């Protein structure tokens, strides 16, 4: 859980760095993004890492599902009166719900962009050497002209933020890394990560919607 969670967190940084190119909506920016997308779907090393990524998502979701089932079974009779807010944060207790929402989002997200890029019938443009290349940029830009699609992304990044707010520091504790000197740093980095990364992700659809 912890290892796949942290790997997915690292992936978020690289994914964000790549996608921030979408903020440059000029023709050169579009060209650069499409070249980047082609590189990401064809370069062998990226392919290896992406298989590791698919595996991580599936393992993380499946293991989370199994653990949640076990945890439910561990308390067959519920309390009649509970005050869980007195001792823990709601998002820490709702990791399974937050994770499931992320999974649903990932299916929609990957169907729309990843599947289309790989196997979809999407328009092509020519690259600098005159060869045809898939125009993923237009697919993304078209998607983000729809308000509900932009709203979905913004809300889901909020969900991701709460998952990470607990998950980031939790992964270190699960791996046995708890130290009076380093744990406060890990917690602060976790809060920063959980807030900043989703905000930048959410910025992309909002920016493209406004500037469309």
């Amino acid at each position, binding site marked *: 859980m912890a290892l796949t969670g942290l790997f997915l967190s690292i992936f978020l940084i690289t994914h964000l760095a790549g996608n921030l190119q979408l903020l440059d909506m000029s023709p050169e920016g579009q060209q650069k993004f499409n070249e980047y997308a082609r590189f990401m779907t064809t370069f062998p090393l990226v392919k290896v890492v992406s298989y590791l990524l698919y595996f991580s998502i599936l393992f993380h979701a499946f293991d989370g599902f199994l653990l949640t089932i076990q*945890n439910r079974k*561990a308390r067959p009779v519920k309390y*009649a*009166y509970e005050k869980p807010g*007195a001792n823990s*944060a709601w998002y820490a207790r709702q990791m399974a719900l937050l994770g499931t929402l992320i999974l649903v989002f990932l299916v929609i997200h990957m169907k729309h962009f990843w599947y289309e890029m790989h196997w979809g019938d999407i328009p092509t443009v020519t690259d600098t050497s005159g060869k045809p290349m898939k125009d993923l940029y237009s697919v993304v830009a078209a998607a983000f002209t729809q308000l509900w699609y932009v709203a979905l992304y913004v809300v889901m990044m909020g969900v991701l933020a709460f998952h990470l707010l607990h998950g980031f520091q939790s992964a270190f*504790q699960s791996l*046995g890394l708890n130290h009076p000197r380093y744990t406060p740093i890990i917690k602060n980095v976790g809060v920063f990560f959980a807030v900043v990364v989703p905000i930048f992700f959410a910025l992309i659809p909002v920016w493209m919607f406004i500037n469309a």
Partner: protein
Amino acid sequence: MGNMKLTLKIWRQNGPNDQGKMVSYPVNNVSEDMSFLEMLDVLNDDLVRKGEDPIAFDHDCREGICGSCSLFINGEAHGPGRLITTCQLHMRKFKDGDTIHVEPWRAEAFPVIKDLAVNRSAFDRIQAAGGFVTVNTSGNLVDGNAVPIPKDDADKAFDAATCIGCGACVATCVNSSAMLFVAAKVSQFALLPQGKPEAKRRVLAMVEQMDKEGFGNCSNTGACEVECPKGISLEHIARMNREYLAASVTKE
């Protein structure tokens, strides 16, 4: 006698296989200087006078050191207040006219015996699986300074050893996980040279027994640390995770 009037909603269950239900009881003449258990004594006294079955609940020392008393009071293990057991909870924490919900610890691994009393022998079996040192410690006096131990380690081991095995950590946890208890029992040995020889075997055996008993998995919500009457730290869980990971990879 005091003058607080309270309504208690208490879990009544006539035995392990009974369905059980919450039952309302009015209690009058409660003094704010009573402990929560003394207030229950008053109620039980009433019930016995009326010829009714008194409410079963666990208690022994009534001074916060034995770990017998339990009770999930108004949605919290050992009720409101921090670093206290139920026997150390006083009625001054409540107001005249309050309704108080009282339930047993809820966990698959802690089956109800009767009313509010649960069977916590799962903890004994975890302890028996590895919470000991194999060297003979009776009779053969050893010079206390023969094995030097850093003060910080001794302090941390002692902190871990203050766990009274009450089970509040399990009762509080959304996952009914026993990690804080087991981590305390692992840490009290792991930090000391006397506990090193069995360290690998101990952590593997105790965690295995914990899983067998049907406790849930730790998701690091931190609720146990907040509700633990002895303030056992999450640091001990991390130490156990470390020990467990290392022992799993290096075992033969």
